[in-house]
């Protein structure tokens, strides 16, 4: 399961995952804590993310396209000025709520920055590395284990879906209209059990090779201080902006 990961070789890609994780969370906290009136603080946050994007050599278009995750909330945010209560102003003949406008701006700005930061994290860090990072940050083993299996199973499910599709098609099946829905529904039921059992067998194979619940870490993955220092730049810049503004 690749998630949003884009393989690459940049200083950001090379940064230890635990450092990136902490940096992104701190950044999000600073952004959320910023009063919504400080427009230019948000502008500076956006600029610092843009700088990270450049250093990481992640295409801007990629980030923008992935921002679509936010879409339902954008729709919501845009509607608030119309349905918001309280004092109203006329903008081009439409009556809008003042508090609603503020709220919309607040949600849009903060959510967009938060999502963009997460996208950058996910785009520059392999999911497995992220899990290792979380493990280093002392996230409870059981959670890591469930997440590991989950990513693994997403792969198994996709794989089984692909196999089943090839098998169906090579026996003359073309999903063209609703009448074929029962076939798909049936194979969906089988898919759950099949993926489970495939995953179970794989898990048993892991156990029989001495797996005890933690992936063996083959390298010393403690991050050197310089890495922490590099990662700290983003949240420090952000807090400086917050403080100065």
């Amino acid at each position, binding site marked *: 399961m690749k998630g949003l990961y884009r393989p690459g070789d940049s200083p950001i890609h090379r940064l230890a995952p635990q450092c990136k994780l902490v940096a992104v969370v701190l950044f999000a906290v600073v952004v959320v804590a910023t009063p919504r009136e400080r427009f230019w603080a948000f502008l500076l946050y956006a600029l610092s993310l843009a700088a990270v994007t450049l250093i990481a050599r992640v295409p801007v278009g990629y980030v923008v396209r992935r921002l679509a995750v936010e879409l339902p909330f954008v729709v919501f945010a845009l509607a608030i000025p119309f349905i918001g209560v309280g004092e109203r102003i006329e903008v081009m003949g439409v009556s809008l709520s003042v508090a609603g406008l503020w709220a919309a701006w607040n949600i849009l700005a903060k959510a967009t920055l938060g999502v963009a930061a997460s996208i950058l994290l996910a785009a520059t860090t392999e999911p497995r590395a992220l899990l290792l990072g979380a493990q280093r940050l002392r996230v409870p083993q059981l959670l890591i284990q469930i997440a590991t299996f989950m990513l693994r199973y997403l792969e198994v499910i996709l794989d089984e879906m692909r*196999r089943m599709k090839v*098998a169906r098609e090579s026996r*003359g*099946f073309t999903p063209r209209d609703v009448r074929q829905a029962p076939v798909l529904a*049936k194979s969906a039921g*089988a898919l759950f059990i*099949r993926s489970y059992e495939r995953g179970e067998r794989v898990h048993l194979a892991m156990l029989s090779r001495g797996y005890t619940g933690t992936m063996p870490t083959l390298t010393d993955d403690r991050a050197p201080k310089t890495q922490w220092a590099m990662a700290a730049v983003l949240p420090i810049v952000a807090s400086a902006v917050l403080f100065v503004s």
Partner: protein
Amino acid sequence: MTLDVRDLAYAYPDGTQALFGVTLSIARGERVALLGPNGAGKTTLVMHLNGILTAGHGEVVVAGLPVNKENLREVRRRVGLIFQDPDDQLFMPTVREDVAFGPANMGLRGAELDRAVVTALEKVGMADAIDRPPHHLSFGQRRRVAVATVLAMDPEILVLDEPSSNLDPASRRELATILRSLDVTVLMVTHDLPYAMELCERSVILSGGVIAADGPTGEILADGDLLAEHRLELPYGFAVPTPPARG
């Protein structure tokens, strides 16, 4: 000409090139064994024959129809493919539904469909398991059901990717008997040279993505140097018998 592959080259999406220009024709009613070392490209070639993979270069023609988007349905009706891994073949919740899937897609219904299903399962000796989920069968049982799913479709060309692996010896012989009794063109990938000898009058060696030899099975298996060059060898205790009469 029933099956015609011309200059076929193919590279997987990750860049591994598996076929480097394969040319091969098989006439109607022939039974041909496709031999070659692991990783030679046999499965890759076979997957082109009913359009699961599409040629990167060159073309595949089945019964006069080039394998392309328009003809795909027709080609798949004619070419029955038994995969190397039975798990790739079975996907419905019960064996019955799985075997019925192909014939039902071809329009069979009711009693006729039932008959096709039961007949195919009886041929491979799995009629007892008709209501069990395929993924709860043993590996060899799954392979037998996989063979049944294709037999039930009554294809004109049967392509089998290592059908005999994981089968017990009796089932192996029974499969050979079934194949001999059908009036179809057969292309069978196998690592079991005696089995190739028993079943196919002609053998093709695919090695490193190209055809390395093509001729009567008896002659090919008798050429020790040729075999050794392509990681093939006759098994322990095997003496080349005189080939059986075709039947």
